């Protein structure tokens, strides 16, 4: 199936609407588009920003591998994944995943798979910066994220 894959790693914001619209533009076989946007939370006012470090060479390659695996598991008609790096303030966008398919089940499952795998496989690390100006800790990986990724194993 023709499934264009777009992966970008960038410091600046993305246009979720334009990315989603692009996956169904000019075609009439897409019946479902799922868009996931992950945002930076203030954690009850504690955070001034999250700083996202990444492995420049590997980040795009790894996300592309994950997107290609999604396209091989589900009948997708398009996959877009964009991940920002650098300093992101509360309310700012961090990650975007868009999937398009004829039917909603494939689009939903593929988007969840992509996010679960991104969380545990894409080489990004979050560091907290506090509102009092102090540098916080590196965010710890969670068991919940590992379990979420584990359910797709086969």
């Amino acid at each position: 199936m023709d499934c264009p894959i777009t992966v970008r790693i960038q410091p600046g914001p993305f246009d979720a609407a334009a990315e989603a619209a692009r996956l169904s533009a000019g075609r009439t076989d897409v019946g479902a588009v799922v868009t996931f946007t992950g945002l930076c939370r203030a954690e009850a006012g504690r955070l001034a920003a999250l700083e996202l470090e990444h492995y420049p060479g590997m980040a795009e390659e790894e996300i592309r591998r994950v997107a290609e695996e999604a396209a091989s598991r589900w009948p997708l008609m398009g996959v877009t994944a964009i991940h920002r790096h650098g300093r992101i303030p509360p309310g700012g966008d961090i990650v975007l995943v868009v999937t398009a398919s004829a039917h909603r089940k494939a689009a939903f499952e593929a988007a969840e798979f992509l996010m679960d795998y991104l969380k545990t496989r894409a080489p990004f690390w979050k560091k907290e910066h506090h509102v009092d100006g102090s540098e916080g800790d590196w965010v710890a990986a969670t068991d919940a994220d590992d379990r979420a990724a584990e359910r797709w194993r086969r």
Partner: protein
Amino acid sequence: MKLVYFAWVRERIGKPEEELSPPAEVRTVAELAAWLAGRGEEYAYAFENPGIVRAAIDRKHVKPDAPIAGAREIAFFPPMTGG
């Protein structure tokens, strides 16, 4: 070979990358981590819990028993927290 470090592994070692030539008996990623841990306090700190540090060879995730022969770039980093 080129070694690159990220997040708190980078902070503990105190540098983002370096060129090193481990001895021939260092054959796997786990052996490389153990050899690095013996190079000084900062490395020992970075690898104090070797089970938690992840590795990639030439930009692909690998397990601790992966052979390092032929690797151009080996990365060590904490579990990922992107997304």
